[in-house]
């Protein structure tokens, strides 16, 4: 580590000095410092693959949505060949935004300022007054398109990066792909969005939400205490102890990606609890009794059995991946939710955390389901998911109110010298039969997996 050249802030602090890797501490100054923020934009947000949306948002040729990569607006569009492109929403002529609407359909995006026009793939169509060469003769038309990001789809999720040298997305996901494949690739039809995403602005540093997404299990007990009080996470006595169902399971992490696989047995007992001994069932019997969130019909269950490997089925039977992140700024929440009629519903909630400066981010929330879910069940999922996650979600409204406090705390001359501590260490612990994929931490959810988020951040920031 000492030999590594590491960026230095104006006051002489090296990025390296913000961490104590031995004691697992991070300076609270990271949660605000504008200088650090600038370095992040350069070393993280222009380097890695970023999630921009889902292919089902732009199903038809010409469909587009405007999204963010860091603070850069980009146009995500589908062309006539059914390919998805991501282009900088900045006219190469005089810097005007080419799209001023947030979504729509167009085979030609014409800049309203001087009329330069671009195709959904970002290529330059032409400028007005073709004969008069408004676009000049210095650059050929091929050089006058919108700046293009590289695009890669992962089970319909649209990722893009500015980094032409970046390894494929699979490299960024590492061994965690095994678990993400379970989450996103369970059915033949794949997922679809239940509508345009919710968006809101939170006056907080993006990392407050970013690091929490990476398996912060403990906050469930306190910040989300009301969920226990109203019975949404199963009923518990007044004593918070290690037997709380939602805290049990297997955390997995690698390369800053972390997931909480929550114990199926404890979910079964607390939410269905028919008195049956869940542990005596076979893997297939278990996932039939308690399918992972989103698998709401027998058809979908059959497809899942067909598509997943025996190892992945085993994971689902022991502890399906439900909550976590994708580095750097994606939050995943695949939930079971008790329905008004007493049965068990479920929903998929995906967030991105888009920095808009050191103390502000835009929180985008997509609600998804398996495409081949019956329409009447989609309606139920849609309502239950919105009541649970996102803007008004009974769970997530407490999170979004917490992050601004941490950011304000990080602005204080004394506050910034405090550290964030990840010292609840359980150590690697792989249950018998659990596949050897990523770092595995079975038992009560502790800080081990979450620390990987900072290790990845550290690695990118000190490069």
């Amino acid at each position, binding site marked *: 580590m000492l030999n590594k050249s590491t960026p230095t802030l104006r006051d002489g602090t090296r990025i390296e000095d913000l961490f104590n890797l031995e004691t697992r501490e991070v300076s609270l100054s990271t949660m605000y410092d504008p200088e650090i923020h600038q370095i992040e934009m350069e070393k993280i947000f222009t380097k890695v693959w970023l999630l921009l949306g889902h292919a089902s948002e732009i199903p038809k040729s010409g469909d587009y949505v405007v999204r963010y990569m860091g603070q850069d607006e980009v146009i995500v569009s589908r062309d006539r060949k059914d390919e998805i492109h991501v282009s900088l929403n900045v006219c190469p002529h005089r810097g005007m935004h080419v799209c*001023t*609407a*947030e*979504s*729509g359909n167009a085979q030609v995006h014409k800049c309203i300022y001087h009329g330069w026009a671009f195709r959904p793939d970002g290529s330059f169509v032409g400028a007005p007054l073709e004969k008069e060469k408004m676009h000049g003769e210095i650059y050929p038309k091929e050089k006058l398109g919108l700046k293009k990001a590289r695009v890669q789809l992962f089970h319909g999720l649209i990722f893009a990066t500015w980094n032409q040298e970046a390894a494929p997305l699979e490299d960024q996901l590492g061994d965690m792909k095994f678990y993400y494949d379970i989450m996103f690739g369970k059915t033949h039809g794949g997922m679809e969005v*239940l*509508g*345009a*995403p*919710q*968006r*809101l*602005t*939170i*006056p*907080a540093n993006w990392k407050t939400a970013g690091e929490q997404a990476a398996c912060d299990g403990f906050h469930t007990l306190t*910040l989300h*205490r*009301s969920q226990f*009080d*109203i019975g949404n996470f199963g009923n518990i006595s007044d004593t918070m102890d290690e037997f709380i169902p939602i805290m049990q399971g297997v955390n997995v992490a690698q390369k800053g990606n972390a997931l909480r696989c929550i114990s199926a047995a404890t979910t079964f007992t607390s939410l269905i609890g028919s008195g049956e001994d869940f542990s005596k069932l076979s893997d297939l019997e278990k996932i039939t009794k308690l399918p992972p969130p989103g698998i709401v019909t027998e058809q979908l269950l059959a497809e899942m059995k067909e598509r997943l490997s025996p190892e992945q089925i085993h994971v689902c039977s022991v502890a399906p991946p439900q909550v976590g992140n994708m580095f750097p700024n994606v939050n995943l929440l695949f939930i079971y939710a008790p329905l*008004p009629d007493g049965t068990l519903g479920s929903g998929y909630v995906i967030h991105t955390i888009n920095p808009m400066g050191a103390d502000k981010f*835009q929180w985008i929330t997509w*609600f998804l389901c398996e495409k081949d879910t019956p329409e009447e069940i989609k309606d139920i999922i*849609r*309502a239950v998911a*919105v*009541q649970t996650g*996102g*803007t*008004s979600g*009974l769970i*997530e*409204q*407490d999170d*979004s*109110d*917490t*992050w*601004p406090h941490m950011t304000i705390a990080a602005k204080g001359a004394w506050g910034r010298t405090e550290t964030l501590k990840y010292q609840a260490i359980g150590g690697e612990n792989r249950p018998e039969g659990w596949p050897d994929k990523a770092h595995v931490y079975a038992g009560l959810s502790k800080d081990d997996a979450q620390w990987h988020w900072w290790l990845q951040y550290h690695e990118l920031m000190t490069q």
Partner: protein
Amino acid sequence: MNNTAEKVAPFEIPPINLPKPTDSITHYQIQQFLHLDAYLLDHNMLAEWLNILAPDLRYFVPIRQTRERKDRDKEFSTKLGHMDDNFQSIAMRVHRLVNTGTAWSEDPASRVRRFVTNVSVWETDVLGEYDVTSYLLLTRNRFYQDDYHLLSAERIDRIRRKGESFELVSREVRMDQSVLGMPNLAIFL
């Protein structure tokens, strides 16, 4: 004075095509009902507020997107919202806020004021039920902030006579922001 001058416009001006408003007494009563609604919410009388909601309530805050003028009919999602509730789920929200002591998103509670104006009331096909639109300007102040989160919206309500008063049957809140400017909707609109 008899003004016979013709209006000159570059296109044919369409007629105003709005139904006839209700009578002034009903209008006044419904306005008072909306004031009661705002009073109960502003004063954190959330449990009491449940009294004025109908059992078949639908409460919806649709997602809004900035669209080109030609696509304005697609601005609001008809399906997905920031809030999508019925009476039971609203009651659960209120229960959490009022009875748990751990609903941190509103504990300490925000200081909220709802300014309700531009009330329009129309008769419907159902006797005793009215379509009501109103404008909402909501200020929300929290903790030690010296400024406010603002939210302006048009509310499209269905309001039903119930005894001497009324009940809210449905509310669609059409916010003016496509990106909400406050960190959550832990409050009612």
